[in-house]
């Protein structure tokens, strides 16, 4: 009677692939409409300055230009965007929300901030007209360096604030000062950890069409969160939510920034479409993406760890600065993730963590895959390595001594997580993962060979780092499951999808519950007409939260199927078997009915649907976890460093991870591979380099290097499954895991190869070369 697991946990090929592989899949920029107008933006060339005048008269006169808008044209619509994520209720928390307007007014605060919008008959003409707009800016000193930003004489990004501090948060557990007094050893260092661009291969795109007759607005948007976009735009435009449809069709990679709501362009294109009563499209180009799409950047940590002589952690203290860029619409998600994830899989009885978010004249910072977690993991993993060295304890051994044991769950860390719930780990089994990773990479043997590895010009190092990842947070997602007259199943859910494989994993969950083939389950995501409740794809929550909602809806449909079949076949429900697209009475091969026939009976054209029942084989269900589930894992790598060129080659990369019950191991491996590649980019190739005027110096793929196929090694992945008790299938998220401990493991491996100390990520060949030279000079 209970569903049989046929697809869940199997390496199922994806339902969506055929469309993508043949070029048929529709991305937003593929949408063509008659009479379509195109947009280009005039953007600030200054990081900081008073906006004296914007004159679009010449642009308006250019043939083919339909409209030019500046802030003065927007009226009430020009008000600042909303704060998306209010900070969690932490005692003493200070947060100054300052959000962007659709177009700059009074001041410009980062290079790329939109100043004027040009609408023309073609993108070529719109770009021509950009040069016609006269922008008069009186430049101000740019706020770039985090520490300098907080000094008394610093220029201020927001004149109405007393300083560039955007937020200040202290979280404490236990009594760190007392722990410090008891400690045998204190390791203290300053660490920097910089992140970079999400660099989804598809740039952003928004297309809006106002239908004057129907009074309906349709928006195609490369967003990770179509439903909140629909709700927010409807409200801001004075329309009913039913008048606005947001479609996020195939989206070419998200990685975080495509959930920044609402980008200026996302506010302006629909507004202009209504004003002009024409369809309008804006497609970001790659250079704009570097300036105008949100990014993640650096943190500066002053951290220390107090330990006993035998390497037990007594406590950690950390004070850090977080660069939030020119505005802070996304609240404090990133630094709170850092603060929480720093505790890792370890037993840390005393913790004192304090951060200041800092406004700078740079692009807005919002979460990028990992979302601050890697910064925290880097700090605690580096402190453990330094402590191991100081205490003469092996690196793996010191970790083993501090891991939370399997008897410690649920484990309450007594601080607040980004989802406004206490940081409680649901389940985990950390030691076997560490042992498996160490054994797979041959750690013990490599340690024995350390002297040989460190000789010659190509030196070999091994790194091994642990992490946890808070995933699958609320508030909720929903799904509607319908058995159609054909007997095929349709699933609609509200989360957007950007390549994760939702069309397949949700189909797997539903196919098992309803006993149908996975190819016969059609999943629809990212269209507010299909499903209109939900939040979006972020925080590695799609499978755990929306997947659980799909499961719940499918279970409810299964009940309807069984109840109807029981009455039609005249059998007790517990004698029925739901499989192969049919319901059959066990042991009576001739007493059987197909789902198609049942769907027809459930929605009759004559007769009556009995009171207390509903027509159709359809149910909608929601899933809202009280708190997230905590995934975990260990990454180990072997690097070879050429001491003459400072080039690093990753020779082997091992991932042992635990994301709870796995729906599709093939897709989970894909998530991990991509995450590791992103993490290696972050560790060695990628950095957004700003000069002292706040100009981004490497805003192209020529200068900002994404790892290529020759940079990323084959990744050996092992799955461990500790189910989460927080959802019915036992799922935890995995979307971000691959890139979280990569920088920490990379630093440790390079350090091991060269016998130097590494406190900063990203490294780069030239940065590493200088470290090698400094070590040689000593």
């Amino acid at each position, binding site marked *: 009677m209970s569903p049989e697991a046929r697809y869940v946990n199997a390496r199922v090929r994806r339902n969506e692939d055929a469309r993508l592989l*043949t070029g*048929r899949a529709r991305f937003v920029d593929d949408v063509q409409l008659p009479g379509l107008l195109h947009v280009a933006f005039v953007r600030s060339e200054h990081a900081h300055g008073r906006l004296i005048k914007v004159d679009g008269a010449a642009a308006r006169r250019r043939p083919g230009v339909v409209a030019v808008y500046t802030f003065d044209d927007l009226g009430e619509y020009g008000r600042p965007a909303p704060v998306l994520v209010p900070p969690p209720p932490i005692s003493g928390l200070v947060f100054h929300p300052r959000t962007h307007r659709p177009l700059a007014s009074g001041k410009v605060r980062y290079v790329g901030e939109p100043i004027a919008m040009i609408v023309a008959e073609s993108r070529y003409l719109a770009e021509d007209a950009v040069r016609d707009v006269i922008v008069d800016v009186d430049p101000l000193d740019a706020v770039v360096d985090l520490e300098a930003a907080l000094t008394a004489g610093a220029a201020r990004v927001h004149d109405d604030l007393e300083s560039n501090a955007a937020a200040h948060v202290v979280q404490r557990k236990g009594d760190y000062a007392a722990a410090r007094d008891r400690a045998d050893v204190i390791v203290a260092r300053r660490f920097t950890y910089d992140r970079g661009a999400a660099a989804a*291969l598809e740039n952003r795109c928004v297309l809006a069409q106002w239908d004057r007759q129907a009074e309906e607005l349709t928006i195609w948007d490369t967003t990770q969160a179509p439903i909140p976009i629909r709700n927010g735009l409807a409200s801001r435009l004075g329309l009913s939510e039913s008048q606005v449809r947001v479609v996020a069709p195939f989206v070419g990679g998200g990685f975080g920034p495509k959930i920044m709501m609402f980008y200026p362009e996302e506010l302006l294109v629909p507004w202009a479409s209504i004003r002009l009563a024409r369809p309008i499209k804006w497609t970001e180009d790659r250079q704009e993406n570097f300036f105008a799409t949100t990014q993640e950047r650096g943190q500066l940590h002053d951290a220390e760890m107090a330990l006993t002589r035998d390497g037990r952690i007594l406590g950690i203290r950390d004070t850090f600065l977080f660069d939030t860029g020119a505005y802070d619409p996304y609240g404090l998600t990133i630094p709170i993730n850092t603060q929480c994830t720093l505790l890792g899989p370890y037993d840390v009885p005393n913790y004192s963590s304090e951060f200041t978010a800092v406004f700078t004249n740079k692009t807005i910072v919002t979460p990028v895959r990992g979302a601050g977690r890697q910064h925290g993991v880097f700090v605690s993993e580096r402190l453990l390595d330094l402590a191991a060295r100081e205490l003469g304890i092996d690196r793996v051994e010191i970790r083993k001594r501090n891991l939370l044991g399997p008897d410690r769950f649920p484990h309450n860390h007594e601080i607040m997580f980004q989802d406004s719930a206490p940081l409680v780990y649901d389940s985990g089994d950390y030691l076997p993962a560490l042992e498996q990773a160490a054994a797979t990479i041959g750690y013990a043997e490599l340690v024995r060979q350390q002297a040989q590895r460190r000789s010659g010009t190509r030196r070999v190092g091994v790194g091994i780092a642990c992490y946890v990842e808070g995933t699958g947070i609320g508030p909720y997602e929903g799904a509607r499951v319908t058995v159609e007259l054909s007997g095929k199943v349709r699933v609609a859910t509200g989360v957007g999808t950007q*390549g994760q494989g939702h069309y397949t994993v949700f189909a797997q969950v539903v196919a098992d519950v309803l006993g149908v083939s996975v190819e016969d389950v059609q999943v629809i995501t990212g269209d507010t007409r299909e499903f209109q409740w939900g939040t979006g794809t972020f925080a590695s929550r799609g499978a755990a939260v929306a997947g659980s909602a799909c499961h719940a809806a499918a279970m409810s449909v299964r009940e309807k199927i069984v109840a109807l079949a029981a009455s039609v076949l005249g059998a007790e429900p517990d004698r029925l078997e739901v499989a192969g697209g049919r319901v059959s009475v066990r042991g009576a091969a001739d007493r059987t009915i197909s789902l198609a026939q049942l769907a027809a009976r459930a929605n009759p054209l004559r007769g009556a649907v009995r009171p207390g029942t509903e027509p159709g084989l359809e149910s909608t269900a929601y899933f809202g976890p009280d708190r997230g589930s905590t995934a975990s894992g260990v990454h180990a790598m072997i690097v070879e460093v050429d001491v003459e060129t400072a080039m690093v080659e990753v020779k082997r990369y091992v991932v042992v991870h635990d994301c709870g019950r796995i729906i599709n191991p*093939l897709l989970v491996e894909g998530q991990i591979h991509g995450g590791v590649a992103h993490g290696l980019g972050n560790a060695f190739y990628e950095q957004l380099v700003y000069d002292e005027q706040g100009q981004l110096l490497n805003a192209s793929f020529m200068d900002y290097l994404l790892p290529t196929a020759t940079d990323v090694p084959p990744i050996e992945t092992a799955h461990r499954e500790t189910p989460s008790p927080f959802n019915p299938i036992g799922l935890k998220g995995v979307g971000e895991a*691959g890139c979280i401990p990569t920088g920490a493991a990379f630093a440790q491996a390079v350090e091991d190869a060269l016998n130097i100390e590494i406190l900063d990520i990203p490294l780069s060949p030239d940065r590493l070369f200088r470290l090698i030279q400094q070590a040689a000079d000593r």
Partner: protein
Amino acid sequence: MPRRGLMILRLVVNGGNHEADVEPRLLLSDFLRQGLGLTGTHVGCEHGVCGACTILFDGEPARSCIMLAVQADGHAIHTIESLSPDGITLNPLQEAFRDAHGLQCGFCTPGILMTLSAFLRDNPAPSQAEVRDALSANLCRCTGYQHIVEAVTRVTRSPLR
């Protein structure tokens, strides 16, 4: 005679003859996507680095985002749409991508398939290193490339490393 300021473009795309009057500055990628509606060719960087826009130009891989449409006058172009003429049946390389999970968001995939189609035509039994070298012409942010290499290995039946 084309209208003033326009040039006549005659080319063969996916085996079909096309003629159009185009602005000399029109990019080939824009002509294919907007002029012919062949939106399977994607534009990821517009400066010739990411490779999402890769097409075959007289059989050789080329970046359609840094070519002018008029440069294709008199030439033969193949786009992703040519790999599966009915748009549904997958060719062996496409099938292998599906089997090996060689794509995630799929935005870079058309360019990668075009690069690899030419590569495998010229080198039907490549080593893993040669596959990675060829693939380094295209950027992918989702897959970490491993499953793409595996997909190629399935087609060529080279031993897995």
